[in-house]
């Protein structure tokens, strides 16, 4: 198979097309996803190819869309649900967190809800606070939902496939700012990503940077820069899966470096970094030379006119955190 050069949006599209093609039970649904191919054009041509009962335009009703998908999944379809922007996912909170994830347990294992909820997220698109939201951490507490965050075209393609094939509900947090900004060669072989496996993007020995989503690339840039400058040696780990997160890769790295920085776009308080910090300090207490630092957005909404520049975490702030970690003294 010859690889094809795809951007993230095309990779997501290819992943969906692959699953629609190979599994007749897969359907895609959401606002504007059909005829027009979605407001980001992620599903361009899919309705034309698979028909309007497999690629479905819905009413403007996030709760209704997810709730109907829950019923579809109970009956045996595998719905992929697009939420137009993650800022609008909250209307479906109850159906995601306490219906889709709970039918299996609450029915004593009789029923299940395999479905994928696509949540286009993250800033850098001059979107303001609804259109640039990082929503993933809301879906961790009380368990039950798998959470995947691709940040490369390859991951986007393979995680989509993995999410569709998973027997349980999966939240796929899509990196909007990378949709068109990042391309790479992908072999479209239908191989799914492994859920629960992190990627060590850069190896290093001084500081572990745990991250996920588009900001991973800023972290990598900082690592490269410092490496080139003979600065601190940074190990960058892209978690890729938040639930379940790859504890082995994390601990292996932390025990080596003794310094941890968590970087995410979402706000600080009870962002996913809180769970990472809590777990790491418990499991690797004796290895830590410095406190675990968090580089995140603050607990305020994403600002429209200056948010991309000053609210969204960036390479500069990652660099400062590295410096702080390296200089820390009791």
């Amino acid at each position: 198979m010859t690889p094809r050069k795809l951007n993230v949006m095309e990779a997501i599209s290819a992943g969906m097309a692959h699953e629609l093609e190979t599994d007749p039970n897969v359907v895609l649904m959401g606002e504007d996803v059909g005829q027009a191919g979605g407001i980001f054009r992620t599903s361009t041509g899919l309705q034309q190819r698979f028909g309007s009962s497999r690629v479905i335009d819905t009413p403007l009703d996030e709760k209704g869309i997810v709730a109907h998908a829950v019923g579809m999944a109970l009956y045996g379809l595998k719905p992929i649900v697009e939420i137009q922007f993650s800022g609008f996912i909250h209307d479906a909170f109850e159906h995601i967190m306490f219906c889709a994830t709970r039918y299996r347990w609450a029915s004593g294992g009789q029923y299940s809800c395999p479905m994928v909820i696509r949540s286009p997220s993250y800033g850098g698109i001059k979107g303001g606070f609804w259109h640039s939201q990082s929503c993933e951490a809301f879906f961790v507490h009380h368990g039950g939902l798998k959470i995947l965050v691709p940040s490369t075209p390859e991951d986007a393609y393979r995680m989509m496939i993995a999410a569709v094939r998973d027997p349980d509900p999966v939240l796929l947090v899509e990196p909007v700012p990378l949709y068109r900004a990042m391309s790479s060669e992908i072999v479209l072989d239908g191989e799914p990503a492994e859920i629960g496996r992190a990627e060590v993007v850069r190896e290093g020995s001084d500081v572990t940077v745990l991250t996920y989503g588009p900001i991973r690339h800023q972290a990598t840039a900082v690592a490269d820069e410092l490496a080139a400058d003979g600065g601190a040696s940074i190990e960058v780990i892209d978690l890729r899966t938040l639930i379940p997160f790859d504890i082995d890769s994390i601990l292996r790295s932390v025990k080596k470096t003794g310094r941890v920085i968590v970087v995410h776009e979402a706000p600080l308080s009870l962002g996913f970094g809180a769970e990472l910090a809590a777990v790491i300090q418990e499991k690797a207490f004796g290895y830590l030379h410095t406190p675990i630092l968090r580089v995140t957005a603050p607990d305020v909404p994403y600002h429209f006119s200056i948010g991309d520049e000053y609210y969204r975490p960036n390479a500069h702030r990652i660099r400062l955190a590295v410096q702080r970690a390296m200089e820390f003294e009791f």
Partner: protein
Amino acid sequence: MAEENPLAGKSRAKPKTAGKGAGGKHCPLGNARALGIRQVIDAEGRLTGDLAEPDLDRDALTRLYEMMVLVRAIDDRGWILQRSGRVEFWIPHKGLEAVHTAATVAFEQKDWIFLGYRHPGTLLLRGAPLVQLFAQFFGRRDEPFKGRRLPTLMGDRRLNIVPMTTQVGSYIPHACGAAWAAKIKGDDTRFLTFFGDGSTSRGEFHSAMNFAGVYKPPIVFICENNGWAVTTPTSVQTASATFSQKGDAYAVRNMRVDGNDPLAVYAATKEARDLAPKEGPTLIEAVTYRLGFHTSSDNPDLYREPEEVEEWAQWDPLDRMRKHLELKGHWDDKLEEGLWARCKSDIDDAVKQAEAMPLPDPASMFDDTFEEMTWMIEEQKAHLLDDLESQP
């Protein structure tokens, strides 16, 4: 001539013995025709209604009645078990026997039903043994949900019955989505769901009706209007004159029936089921009444007048069905006595058996979170079981 047929009655004639039921202050069933509440039989079991008598033979009719009585007997017992502390919680269904039993009979076994919490008859009609129900009430390990859920929240995949989600109304779009899925897959599976008057206020009712109008899935929505949502009367729930007419806002076919008339419920549901593949959804409002408490934690004295209950008791669906069977010559006092005795002894056996069943094991709490347990859950399980080992 109609007058000679004891089942016919004079349409619109005031039934002789119906008392307040004839069109009382609280109960609308005596005034059904004017209110667009479709009926087959009146308070005396006579065929005076504006709906045609459905095609049910002696056997079918008596089986339906027998189930209604068993369902009543279960409620009687559940209540006693709760009051004596043997069952933690009870959700009564007294007075509501007609809607779910008759509607269930109008559907086929292969059809899917999304249940509420006052519908034990649906499981029994599809073949669940009585002991399974009581095991659920007692929260025992070997009931379908492994003891995880409140008493009377029932379901069973083998019987195509999906259990409710506990948040009232939230499963209406799940039912609708499942029906839509069957349509997409080209299966001839049809769907039925029950929910209360209160549930229509939630956004999920709106979502389901709206999607149902647009995608025309094969589903019958039954709104069991029993007058109350806990302590809240329908007049606070909505200003709409009926619940059925809410279907119009979504171009969903709709109908209002006497929910204490099992034949009317059967007729309306059967027709709606028949139409479902071609015409899509129907919303049926079944006008009925909760004679009992909302739950075992409730105190109806705080919010409703005893006269209301008395008036509705005149329209007890069991009485009406029994009278109808008697008029048809299918029933008598001896059969009645025998039936009740049988119900009670069957329940005695089921209670004894179910109560003796083991409780679930703590380790089982962790099952069924995912198809395959994540390391996170596994670690938490190990940790908890470790802690529990030394727990006194």
